[in-house]
C-alpha cells in the first residue's frame, strides 16, 4: 500500500515541480537564436542551462537581429566556462532583469571580470563579495583552468527560484577576455612563455577595447513585439542563415510529450501496486478474521452486536490504509529529497520538497476506498459466524 502511494505521489510531485520549473524559466522568452543543431538542445542549454550549447554565432549576426523592428528586446548569452561545476554565463544586466533578480549583497558588475553569483552558488561554494577565483573550461569540475584571468565577485543575488540561483553572471566581455588569452596561450605554447607572462601582468590592469563584430556568443534570447510576426521572422532565419531559431514553448511541449510516455507507464505500474496491496490487505484481513474467529465469537457471546464487530474490522482496514498513505507520502518526500540532492549535484536543479498536492488528496480518498473495500468483504464473514459451533470447536 505504502509503496504504491509513494510511487504515485512521487510521480505527481516530480512532474509538477519539473513542469513548474520549466515554465517559470521560460516565461517571457519568445525565441532563442543559436547555432544550427538540435532546437531542443538549444533551448535546454540557453534557457535551462542543463545541456551543452550547440555552438557559437557571431555577435555581428546577433546584432543585426536585435536591430530588427520586430524584436522588442534581446539578451545575449555566452556559455562555456564553469567554476566548481557551476556555469559562468556571459550576458548583460538585461539577463538579471529578466528574472527580476534582486541583490542580497553587493551590486551589479560594471567592469570586465566582475561577476554576480546566484544565491545557491554563493551558499554551496561559500563565496563572498570580493572573493576571486579562476574559471575552468567546459562544465566539468576537472576542466582546464584559465589561470591567467581571475573573476571577482561583486554581487550576490537573492533566491529567485529560477536557473539564476545556480548561475554566475558576468559581462560578455569577460568571457571573451578569458578565451582570448586561452587561445593565445595555446597558439604560443612553448614559444615564448616569458613574453606571455609579461603581457598578462600588463593586461590584467587594463580593459582592452573589444571589437564586438569579431566576437562570438552562444545564443540570443529574443522577445518579439508581435509574436505572430515573430514566428514568420523565425522561419526566415531558419531558412536563410546559418543561425537556428527555437521556440521554447514548442520544444518544451515536445519534451513533455516524450517524458509523458514514461511517466504514464510508471503511473500504471503504481496503480497496479496499489491494487495488489489492496488485495494483500484483503487477504491478510481475511486470514486474520479466520484466526480471530474465536475471538469474534467470544465477543459476540459477551453481548457484542455483529454490526459493532463489523465496524470494528472495517475501522481496522481504514487505519491500515491511512497508515499506508502516511508512510507512502513520507516515502515519496524522502525519495524526492534524495532525488533532488542528486539532481542538484548533477544538473544544479532542485525541487521544493514539502508541498502537498491536491492530487494527493484524491489519492488519499482512493486509498481509503480500496482499504474499505478490502476490509469490508472479508468482514462480512462476521455475519455468518456460528457462535456456538465456533466456541465448542476450540
Amino acid at each position, binding site marked *: 500500500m505504502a509503496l504504491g502511494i509513494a510511487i504515485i505521489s512521487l510521480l505527481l510531485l516530480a512532474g509538477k515541480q519539473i513542469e513548474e520549473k520549466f515554465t517559470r524559466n521560460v516565461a517571457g522568452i519568445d525565441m532563442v537564436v543559436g547555432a544550427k543543431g538540435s532546437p531542443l538542445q538549444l533551448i535546454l542549454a540557453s534557457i535551462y542551462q542543463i545541456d551543452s550549447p550547440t555552438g557559437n554565432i557571431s555577435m555581428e549576426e546577433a546584432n543585426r537581429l536585435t536591430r530588427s523592428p520586430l524584436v522588442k528586446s534581446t539578451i545575449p548569452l555566452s556559455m562555456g566556462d564553469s567554476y566548481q561545476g557551476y556555469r559562468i554565463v556571459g550576458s548583460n544586466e538585461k539577463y538579471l532583469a529578466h528574472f527580476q533578480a534582486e541583490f542580497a549583497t553587493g551590486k551589479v558588475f560594471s567592469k570586465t571580470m566582475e561577476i554576480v553569483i546566484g544565491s545557491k552558488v554563493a551558499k554551496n561554494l561559500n563565496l563572498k563579495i570580493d572573493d576571486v577565483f579562476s574559471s575552468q573550461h567546459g562544465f566539468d569540475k576537472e576542466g582546464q583552468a584559465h589561470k591567467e584571468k581571475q573573476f571577482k565577485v561583486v554581487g550576490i543575488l537573492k533566491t529567485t527560484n529560477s536557473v539564476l540561483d545556480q548561475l554566475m553572471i558576468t559581462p560578455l566581455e569577460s568571457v571573451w577576455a578569458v578565451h582570448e588569452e586561452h587561445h593565445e596561450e595555446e597558439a604560443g605554447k612553448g614559444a615564448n612563455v616569458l613574453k606571455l607572462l609579461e603581457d598578462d601582468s600588463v593586461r590584467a590592469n587594463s580593459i582592452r577595447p573589444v571589437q564586438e563584430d569579431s566576437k562570438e556568443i552562444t545564443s540570443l534570447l529574443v522577445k518579439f513585439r508581435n509574436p505572430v510576426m515573430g514566428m514568420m521572422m523565425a522561419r526566415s532565419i531558419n531558412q536563410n542563415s546559418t543561425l537556428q531559431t527555437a521556440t521554447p514553448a514548442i520544444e518544451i511541449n515536445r519534451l513533455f510529450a516524450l517524458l509523458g510516455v514514461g511517466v504514464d507507464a510508471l503511473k500504471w505500474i503504481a496503480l497496479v501496486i496499489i491494487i495488489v496491496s489492496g488485495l494483500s490487505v484483503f487477504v491478510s484481513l481475511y486470514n486474520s478474521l479466520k484466526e480471530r474467529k474465536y*475471538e469474534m465469537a467470544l465477543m459476540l*457471546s459477551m453481548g457484542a*452486536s455483529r454490526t459493532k464487530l463489523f465496524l470494528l474490522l472495517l475501522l481496522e482496514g481504514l487505519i491500515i490504509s491511512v497508515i499506508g498513505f502516511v508512510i507512502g507520502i513520507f516515502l515519496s518526500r524522502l525519495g524526492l529529497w534524495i532525488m533532488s540532492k542528486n539532481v542538484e549535484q548533477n544538473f544544479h536543479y532542485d525541487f521544493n520538497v514539502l508541498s502537498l498536492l491536491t492530487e494527493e488528496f484524491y489519492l488519499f480518498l482512493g486509498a481509503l476506498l480500496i482499504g474499505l473495500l478490502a476490509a469490508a468483504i472479508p468482514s462480512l464473514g462476521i455475519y455468518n459466524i456460528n457462535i*456456538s459451533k465456533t466456541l*465448542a470447536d*476450540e
Partner: protein
Amino acid sequence: MIATQNLTFAYTPEKRFDFPNFSCADRETILILGKSGKGKTTFLHLMALLLKPTGGNIQINNQEISQLSVSQAANFRAKNVGIIYQKPHFVHSLSVIDNLLLANYLAGKNQAKQLAQQLAESLGFSEHLLKKTTQLSQGEQQRVSIARALMNKPSVILADEPTSSLDDDNCMKVIDLLKKQIQEIGASLVVVTHDQRLKEVFEKRIEL
C-alpha cells in the same frame, strides 16, 4: 437461579438430545457429568442462549428466556450470564485488565475498574493486570476467565470443563474460588464436565 424443563435440541433429526430437568437456586452449585458426545456443551450453550432449543423451557431469575430473539438473548446473556470456557480465550490484542473491562463494555455497563482490581486480587493475578493474556500461564489464564465471567455480577455462571486442562492442585483451587465467588455475588453455578475429580466436591449432580 436457573431451571430447565423438558429441554430438547436437534442438530439434525437423527442427532437429537433430550436433557434432564433441573433447577439451581442462588448460591447453589450443580455438577453436570457426562462422557464426550453426550451433549454437555450443547446443554450449556442452550442455557447460555447461544443455541435456541427445539423444545422445552429455561428460566433464569424466574424469567422465561427460551423464546427470546437473537438480539434480546445477546443482551440478556451479557447482563445475567457469565460463561467460563474449557480453554481460556481472550482478545489477544488487549491486556488482562482490558479483557476484563471488555465484558462491561460489551454489556453496555460502566467499566468497573475497581471490581476488576478486587477480583484480580482475590483470584491472585493482580500483578499481571497490565500484561498481555498470552504471557500468563494456563492456570492464571483460567483464573482471569473466571474473573471475566464475574465482571457483570451475573445471576448464573456457566462453566464448561473449567478444570480439564489443570492439574489437581489448580483444579481444586479453581473450584474453591468459583464457589467462594458465587457466594459473594449470590449467583448459581452450573459446571459441565467429564472430570471425575469434581464428583466429590459437588453435592448436587446430574449424569447425562
